[in-house]
């Protein structure tokens, strides 16, 4: 099957039901998306599928074929970070950092849809993303900063 990840087309030969997460990590060598639970309960594997935030451990590769997949690596780079990534850097959100690719992708999808979210909208959108280090206060602040509503 053919799959487009971060703007690059790949021809892959994998099972239809192999979750996208392992196609990315183990077949394509794109390691930013993380395995945390495998049941859609932690959000560490969050990527964008045609702009929508999804759990890559819950999407079959067969269903991702033909769609545009964006991973954390495709969102921005250290030299040219996405505004959400810049806010994450500025506020030093990460502790262990393992969940942060998923947090950043979830937050970027939220802001693409709702440029200036309310606290309630932030809580609803980010509720599925687990951070065992509990960096939540800075996640909240970084989303506000990226939305340009810091202190609002």
């Amino acid at each position, binding site marked *: 099957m053919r799959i487009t990840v971060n703007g690059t087309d790949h021809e892959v030969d994998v099972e239809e039901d192999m979750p996208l997460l392992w196609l990315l990590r183990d*077949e394509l060598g794109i390691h930013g998306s993380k395995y945390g639970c495998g049941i859609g309960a932690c959000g560490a594997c969050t990527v964008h599928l045609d702009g929508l935030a999804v759990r890559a451990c819950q999407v079959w590769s067969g269903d991702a074929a033909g769609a545009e997949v964006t991973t954390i690596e495709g969102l921005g780079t250290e030299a040219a970070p996405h505004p959400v990534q810049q806010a994450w850097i500025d506020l030093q959100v990460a502790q262990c950092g*393992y969940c942060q690719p998923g947090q950043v992708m979830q937050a970027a999808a939220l802001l693409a849809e709702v440029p200036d979210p309310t606290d309630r909208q932030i809580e609803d959108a980010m509720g599925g993303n687990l951070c065992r280090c509990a960096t939540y206060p800075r996640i909240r602040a970084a989303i506000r900063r990226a939305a340009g509503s810091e202190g609002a």
Partner: protein
Amino acid sequence: MGTAGKIARRTFLIGTAAIGAGVAFGIYAYRRDPGNPLTAGLAPGEAALTPYVLLDAEGVTLITPRIDLGQGAASIQAHLLAEELDVDPAKVRLASGPASPVYHNGSVAAEGMPLAAWDEGLIARGGRAASEVLGKFGGLHVTGGSTTVADAYDRLRAAGASARETLKAAAATRLGIAREDLRTEDGRVVWADGSAPYAELIPLLADVEVVQDVPLRDPSAWRWLGQPHRRVDVAAKSVGTYRFGGDLVLPDMLHATVVTNPLRGGGVVSMHASEAEAMRGVEAVLPITDGAAVLADNDWRAFRAARAIRFESGGEGPTSDALWKAHEAALDGDRDSAFTDEGDVDAAPGTRIEATYRVPFLHHAPLEPANATVRYTPEATEVWTATQAPIFVARSVARITGQEAEQVTVNVLPAGGSFGHRLEDEWVRQAAEIAVQVPGRPVRLTLSREQDMTHGFYRPMAVARGRGTVENGRVRALDLAVAAQSVAESQMGRVGFPAFGPDVALVAGAWDAPYALPDRRITGHRVAATVPVSSWRSVGASHNGFFLESFLDELIAEAGADPVEERLRLISHEPSRRVLETVAEMASWNGPEGKRGVAFVYSFGVPVAQIMEVRQTEAGIVMDKLWIAAEVGRVLDPVNIEAQLSGGALFGIGHALSSEITFDGRGPEQTNFDSYESLRLWQTPEIEVRALGSGGPIRGAGEPGLPPAAPALANAVFAATGTRLRRMPFAADMRFA
């Protein structure tokens, strides 16, 4: 009585690490300086200045031997070195360095001794000095006990200064001018009309002696330390390029996972793997201790095949009900310790109250599942894993491969969290068991979340009974009995050492609380070892903070006193008073006001006070705000210390609310984050942190933020509802929004 019995009465557990290492290395290792482990591996054109600074043609590499688990260890170690070496931590390379006794942790052994950290008396100081010697001869290359900053503060600055002055000495020789006439700046030695990058001086270093005993710079001259500065890893962690242990890919690598009996030692009754073996991408199904390993070309294919193994495991384990009963019975059984026993709690006058508390087993559950990569050959074995104790890993692996520990190289990789989990090494041993069956091929073992969750080394279940009296509006007597399994006994049992004497961790955070009551007794009661238990963030203080601060709050309420004022009345230790006064000022404390609770715990040498404010809503209790004040002696990184104190508090709150590991006789009943719940963003209160650096010994903040959080919440819930939350998880007894 035999010698062992005599020793037992006079000594105490000093933790796995200390005993294990002491025996294996022998006492002579203390007198023999273990030397610089970097020297052996130097290529032509490289130089090692101290065990912490490596130079090659491309520049400087700083060695940061305490593993980064998310607590910021790599960054603070780099900044301590860089502050004296005059390099920019963002522009140099960092490496974890080899496993070596030269990287011993002089502070960690003191945590296992019955010496209150606030005690500056002769015996306590002597004991701490002895434990440092123990750490040194034991070669405790260990990360833990919130000791990284305390242990590294002088040592790494001294290493940076020594390397800097040695580089200057090399340049001085070449230039024919005095070392004092040179200065350093951003990785260069600078003189009146020129400069040279450190790397250019490598050829000259062979001819100069390492300059020792260099005076350290005054903090007023610091460039980074004490100021907000950027963590070295934060950009990579924000753009997805940071690489964890589980991201390692080696040529010809096999992907492995294991499925084993949740009851260790229970063995395998029957196993049918033919279906798994026939699945796409599966190379082999191999036997290992208590189960099987699947080797495949992809993690998911390995997981899928592991699920297809039909597996009947043997053995019989405890149930939670039986364990609760055993703990309650232990409260009336033999004492393991009574480090605090003043006055006469049984005869104290006043109104008497009693309450019982309990907390369940908890998993560390770092978000990155346990993983390890091992490549075995008959000549040498190489290990790549995120471990807090690399020398122990080398020894564990050597026992499996039948090699000497010196034949095993351990590469320490960054961890996606730990909370104490990566002091354990079961998965590294499993990876080694697999690797010896496929010599020459690297095997990367990744545990499924389910395997990881059901094969934990848990925070012990614990039960406590508080008894005390109040008289004339004051707390008079406090008697707290704590029953739990011994973490040290469990850990030492896993490496084959017996545990003599009382376990300090069992009562930590309670026996050493600086409350001066005329009648006060804290006793530990050890429950027989069943479920394997381990060091979980803040260890014994994680439950004893809750027990002591909840029961003290009950006594204060009974006395009709103010929770802050009465605590202050009982405390004379100045730093402890300071954090209580500070947190009261931050929150404009004016009593519980039907919404607020306070708690104070002294752990890991850090007094921490917290005030929680809650609100009752139709959906349940909402946590609105948490104030935290802590005294760490000196604040080196204001941004990270806030993260550690708030992260520790939220870790404590999240588990107190809804987490537990229960046992049904076949093993743990929770398998993943759907059944082992964790704090979520919507539950998180607003947090305000004040970290004080008022002088005194410098301390770490990774753990001490945790113990006061749950009791501050429970005491706030009492203020709001009149209900005392005496058992965790709180959500079993109280609805939270």
